[in-house]
């Protein structure tokens, strides 16, 4: 099977269109900024249309930032109309976006055919046990990489 990559802007426009029609969308995860929860190229993400509940701390959202940059990161702070996002695998990098820039909420992560649903104990374990402090994160990521080195 051939693996091809579609331009981000086109792909996410398509995703937004499907979500607006009320369809859920499954896509493969890319990038390492949500480690250790979401693994590049292996995990499958299920996206749904964002609702009022999506704009809450701890939720995972897909947002369009400036210059057509798309991220799937965790909401870490809600202030006024703005959301602060940070990838679980990022130490000190935050993104800020408005509610209108949130295209989707991640409702499920599928790993090796097993589904981790939003709000399930495994989902919450990644949310609550993973440290927020940059130094602890650095240690956690180093441990993760060492354990997963092949």
């Amino acid at each position: 099977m051939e693996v091809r990559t579609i331009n981000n802007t086109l792909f996410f426009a398509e995703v937004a269109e499907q979500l607006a029609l009320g369809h859920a969308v499954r896509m493969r995860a890319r990038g390492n900024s949500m480690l250790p929860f979401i693994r590049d190229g292996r995990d499958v993400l299920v996206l749904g249309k964002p609702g009022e509940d999506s704009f809450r701390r701890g939720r995972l959202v897909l947002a369009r930032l400036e210059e057509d940059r798309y991220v799937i990161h965790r909401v870490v702070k809600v202030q006024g109309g703005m959301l602060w996002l940070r990838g679980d695998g990022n130490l000190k990098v935050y993104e800020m976006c408005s509610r209108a820039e949130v295209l989707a909420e991640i409702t499920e992560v599928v790993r090796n055919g097993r589904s981790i649903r939003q709000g399930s104990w495994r989902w919450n374990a990644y949310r609550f046990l993973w440290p927020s402090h940059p130094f602890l994160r650095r240690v956690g990521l180093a441990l993760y990489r060492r354990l997963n080195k092949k």
Partner: protein
Amino acid sequence: MRLKEQFSIRNIGGEYMMVSQSGSGLDYTRVVTLNHTAAFLVESVIQKDFTEEDLTDLLVEKYDVARDVAAKDVQALVGTLLKEGLIEE
């Protein structure tokens, strides 16, 4: 034969893609790109039983091509879809 799953043909940036549809969702983890003709054929037989003959008829009707040429194209397409496990006999 018949398409194994429910598919939706999407045009993304000028390219036709066959996206599998399950329940209320679309699965972009595995998409098959199609050319214009293939997209037309696949779209015509979504949720229908069909034979290579049927597809050849469709092609001849729509594109005004010689029957043997159309039949060859259809054979190639069906071969690919079978190989990828997208249709069943």
